[in-house]
């Protein structure tokens, strides 16, 4: 079989591009060939992704369209007679961006508006979560291919004298001998609500843990938003909040290994890979149950209610940081979630969806 992947855009750290590379490896292992193209390509991607104009699909070839952003050039692909599988990676509602990044807001608004046209032109429509799929009236899910092996060992295996990253070893995390480190990983963007994370953290710090630290990892949507968030961090908790981006896989793994709790107050998530990453490292997760979060987290996260504000979150952080048995219970459930999203079932879902097109 020949299958071509079509992306709206390709970048070196982009989750969709990473997903496309992983899919291509799977296709290769099944003996399928084809090429991967994108409407916009960051030069750092190299020649693994070709320009959209180089797509020459033969009569029986299948097209897998990864839809993640507005891309007017992709419309031409809809006109091709080939069978098509549309995989939606979700687009954030524009209302989160109008005040902070008008260009991103326009792209989101147009992307969401264009999505039904793509869904109507595809033979099979799928989402990376049921939440995403149902936005397009589909029940077909091809989850994000999550391979925890790429992140390294869950526990810190380095010698006690070695560097421990931002906040201490696994034993310190459970024993309470080191200062608590609260972590959030996700783009520094309005809908991710790092502002609320910082406020909840500051309350927790004031009430329970004056030495606690907050680590926010994620690339900013733009320079101005980055500056605004850094200013807020300095205003709320001077010296206690670190904002980082561009980390290597090893550095990211270190942040997870050092974390006491993972706090996600995002208002919109299509899937939320960092939840699975936190689960892999056995870090207790507190999250808002929005979008695909409840589906991915299952019973392994402490999911907040709509009325739960920063004060409740601060108390929950204190409980999670000090109750070792609660942490152990969450860790056990987390392992089950990671197993549920193992690469093999995802590969099977992908293969079934593609083969249904080829029949």
């Amino acid at each position: 079989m020949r299958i071509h992947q079509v992306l709206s855009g390709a970048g070196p750290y982009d989750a969709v591009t990473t997903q496309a590379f992983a899919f291509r490896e799977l296709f290769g292992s099944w003996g399928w060939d084809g090429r991967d193209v994108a409407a916009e390509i960051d030069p750092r991607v190299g020649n693994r992704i070709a320009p959209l104009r180089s797509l020459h699909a033969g009569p029986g070839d299948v097209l897998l369209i990864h839809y993640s952003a507005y891309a007017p050039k992709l419309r031409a692909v809809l006109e091709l007679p080939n069978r098509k599988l549309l995989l939606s990676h979700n687009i954030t509602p524009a209302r989160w961006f109008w005040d902070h990044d008008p260009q991103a807001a326009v792209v989101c608004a147009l992307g969401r508006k264009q999505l039904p046209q793509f869904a109507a032109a595809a033979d099979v429509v799928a989402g990376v979560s049921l939440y995403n799929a149902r936005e397009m009236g589909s029940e077909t899910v091809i989850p994000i291919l999550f391979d925890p092996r790429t992140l390294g060992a869950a526990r810190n295996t380095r010698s006690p004298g070695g560097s421990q990253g931002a906040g201490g070893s696994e034993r310190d995390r459970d024993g309470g001998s080191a200062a608590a480190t609260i972590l959030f990983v996700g783009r520094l963007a309005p809908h991710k609500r790092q502002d609320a994370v910082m406020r909840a953290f500051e309350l927790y710090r004031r009430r329970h843990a004056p030495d606690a630290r907050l680590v926010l990892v994620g690339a900013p949507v733009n320079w101005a938003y980055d500056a605004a968030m850094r200013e807020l961090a300095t205003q709320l908790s001077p010296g206690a909040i670190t904002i980082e981006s561009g980390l290597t896989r090893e550095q990211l793994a270190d942040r997870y290994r050092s974390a006491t709790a993972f706090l996600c107050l995002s208002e919109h998530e299509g899937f939320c890979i960092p939840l699975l990453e936190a689960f892999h490292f056995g870090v207790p997760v507190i999250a808002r149950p929005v979008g695909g979060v409840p589906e991915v987290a299952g019973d392994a996260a402490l999911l907040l209610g709509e009325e739960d504000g920063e004060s409740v979150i601060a108390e929950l952080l204190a409980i999670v940081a000090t109750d070792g048995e609660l942490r152990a219970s969450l860790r056990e459930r987390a392992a089950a979630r990671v197993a549920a999203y193992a690469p093999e079932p995802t590969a099977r879902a992908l293969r079934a969806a593609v083969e249904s097109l080829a029949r």
Partner: protein
Amino acid sequence: MRTPEEALAAARAAAARRDDELPAGMSIEPTERVSIEQLMEWAAIEPDVELMVSTRRLGAPITWFKRKVIHFMRQYFRELQSQQTRFNLNVLIRVAELEDRVARLEDARPPGAPPADDGAPPRPAGAS
């Protein structure tokens, strides 16, 4: 020991006993509907030169250079700005007038008449 299910209830009870103030500072809110007044403000574009920066490490000289380029081209940029703002404001005024007109028509609708926009396509003549 608390179960995960009990932990949330315990946190809510503990929070209810607290009466300390929430930390102040910027709070992100979604823009559900942009008002005409807000659109007017956005329509008159006036980008701040401070927004022109280099995000590279040690990018200060690049930032300085980029701002100098803007300064040298200020006459041309002013022209661009005024043409774009002229278009934006005129479109907005038309939209505001249309909104007023629709509102007036809706107010003048006789009691019991169907809504002006019930989502249905116009019926062909003779259809029941």
